[in-house]
């Protein structure tokens, strides 16, 4: 067991965990933020996507010990601060989610995409979002919502 001080959504949190514990389980079960989801545990589905210093990472493949000190972690709960992020608003406008289980990960990837490419084309979206699986098949709406969000920010 080791002690870690994590900066999650702007809040400092202390956790005690085995060094190899993936951030996915640290965030969900040690910190108690359940918006980040377990889908595959193998970096195949993107459901567990979080941001570390603004970069999207698969938290199921990120051991807590691998994070550099003072890394800024953002989860779905922290993406919008006081109000919903433009991407979340666009997601509501386009009524993207079906079961919704993949959507935290989709949104985290989309936010990162728009940071890297504020006006993405369909091809950009397809390339960037290909790591996120949606079994319910909301892909067409994800594309539309990303374009809508791009127009909003």
């Amino acid at each position, binding site marked *: 067991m080791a002690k870690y001080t994590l900066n999650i959504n702007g809040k400092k949190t202390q956790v005690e965990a085995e060094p190899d514990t993936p951030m996915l389980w640290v965030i969900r079960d040690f910190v108690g933020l359940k918006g980040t*989801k377990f889908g595959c545990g*193998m970096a195949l589905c993107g459901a567990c996507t979080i941001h570390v210093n603004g970069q999207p990472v698969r938290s199921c493949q990120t051991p807590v010990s691998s994070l550099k000190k003072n890394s800024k972690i953002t989860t779905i709960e922290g993406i919008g601060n006081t109000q*919903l992020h433009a991407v979340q608003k666009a997601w509501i406008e386009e009524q993207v989610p079906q079961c919704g289980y993949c959507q935290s990960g989709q949104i985290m990837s989309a936010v990162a995409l728009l940071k890297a490419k504020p006006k993405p084309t369909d091809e950009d979206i397809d390339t960037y979002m*290909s790591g*996120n*699986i949606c079994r*319910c*098949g909301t892909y067409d*709406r994800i594309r539309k919502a990303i374009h809508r969000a791009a127009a909003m920010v």
Partner: protein
Amino acid sequence: MSSINNKNVNRRDFLRYTSLSSVALILGIPNVKASDTAVISNLSDLEEAFNLNPFVMIEKSGKITIFNQRPEMGQGTFQSIPALIAEELGLSQEQFTIKQTGGEKHFGGGQWSGGSSSVRTDYMELRKVGAAAREMLIAAAAKQWNASESECYAKDAKVFHKPSGKSLGYGDLVETASKLNVPKDPKLKDPKDFNILGKSIKRQDVPLKVSGQAVFGIDVEVPNMVYASVERCPVFASKLKDFDKTAALKIAGVEQVVEVERVFYNYKTIGVAVVAKNYWAALKGRKALKVNWDYQGHENFNSKDFSQYLRDLAKNEGVVDKSEGDFDKTFAESNNKIEAFYETPFVSHSTMEAMNCTAHWKDDGKLEIWASTQVPGSVIEDLPAIFGIKAEDITLHTCFNGGGFGRRLAIDFIIEAVNLAKTIKKPVKLIWTREDDTQLGPFRPPTFSAMKGALSPDGKVAAFQHKVIAPTILSFMTPKEDRTKPDGTMVEGISHQAYEIPNMKNTMVFADNHVPLLWWRSVTSSTLAFAHECFIDEMAQKAGKDPLQFRLDMLTKESDTKRVLQKLKEVSKWDMPLPKGKGRGIAQWEFFAGLGGCVFEVTKQSDNSVKIDKVFIAIDLGTVVNPDTVKSQMEGCVVMGITAATQNGITFANGKAEQSNFHNNPVMRISEMPKVEVHILAEGGKTIKGVGEPGLPPIAPALANAIFAATGIRLRKMPFDLSNLV
């Protein structure tokens, strides 16, 4: 009667409740009896709340709760079901909260989602529930004002008095209203006055799902909870011999290692559960286990042999599903006939949220469960017999389902968690890994189809046979399968297409199998339609006719199917020729859940691959509650249908599934998403058809038919690889 002793629920309320529950029966909701009021768990925390019926609760403060009996798994029932009540009750969506029911007896037998049945079953019943409540509130207001009811109307959670403009909120009226008789035959709104039904209203679960707030089963947290992962034998129907837990117990956080039984109907296996302080420790502990299994000979099971076995069975005559005219004679005497054989694989459901359940077997013998399940009703009904517990001692919290697709119609993972909770006497969250979910079933059953067809001299279908060879889902649910007649689930739809065929004989050959099987979105329609509708295309080609016209020629009478095909013909511009290398394919399917059809447009690429350009999909509904939800379900059917047709499938070697996670059991990704155009046919009429499933069966055959049109390659085995068609 145990839960009615709460001090806040007085005798009058109880009697009131009793009579209202019986009113629910009068309103036509099945299975609700006055005696069912023995469990009224929801009343215990309410001081001044009144239920005008079990589904609507109005508090004096004006807070209104509508109970949703249909679990939400992405199909939109969280919006569409309460909307049926809200519309009649004069509420807008912001004016009430929704509570998911947990199998409580007083909510009756409709507490499940599946078979595309929610809206079509509840459409009239729940509107009556809302209308009855509205009439009671209006009567209460009229009484208060000494006015006539006809001068009053309900809107926005208030009753208004037209002449004076006075109004009273529902909260102010509910005490009086709850003492009134419940109207037996409340007047329903005229659909032209609808504010919610038939409109693309935004779903209330969506804001929760974009902000990480929606609680899925896997998100539940209970004080002092532990976590578990279970090692189960990858070879089906094996027995546990022994195991060594020494290494597992050394992993930091691991608390104990115990046996646990999974019960999937009459398929029962024992696994080894590692219980730990956190899930990661449970996973590590599980890896450290040494377990010995007795495979019972099942280690020799493999897909190649099983396919051959099914092919060999095709020689058998089978039992007749439907016979019309004289197929045998017509086919034997024809000199213009064809035969073909179609195959489909085992398929996993792969819901994004893997199976999981949290259970707490308390010291007082009561049981509390938190789960994503499609069947809260069956959880409460089935557990008493398994665990010797009384139904009223079980509390179930139905969570949002991270996908269902039929997988969560079974409660094997719930029974497993309860078993474990009973052993360890602590609240425990048992989570399946993606590997467990992919490899351990239950799966969609593979169906093989032997097709025969003969053409008449004028190029019409003179004789047709669809023979299904398949293991059955039901064999896991009945002690002894009746093989003297076909299993309806396994021949779904093959004898119910609208095509007018003079000589037809559809049959089924039963196959033995030990790999757990279950319903999968649209069940066997998703496999049988592939064979059926591709073979119709094969016959069209043999007859030298256009595939769509060939179908219309078999539909001389007016029918829903004909309407769907004509719509597709129009919107896809079917009659406009495509350039060389491009092709269109069509298919339709009618079955218990409803009717859908689609046209695929594909382009052949220079490297033997095929690209899907566009999908036109039409669904025939009769009545639509939320067009946008229907549209999203159709988009979902396209994705799931293409995935099953071209990507995933489970094969077996040495008794085990060869696939384990999304890398070798892939599902479609965004880059593969074609353009989809949805057409909803809602012409009114008496029957309402289902939404969640009917879009799926025509996908695979329409795609395969389009590929044939573009390439000349006839695909008869799923999954087929779009990137390398030879």
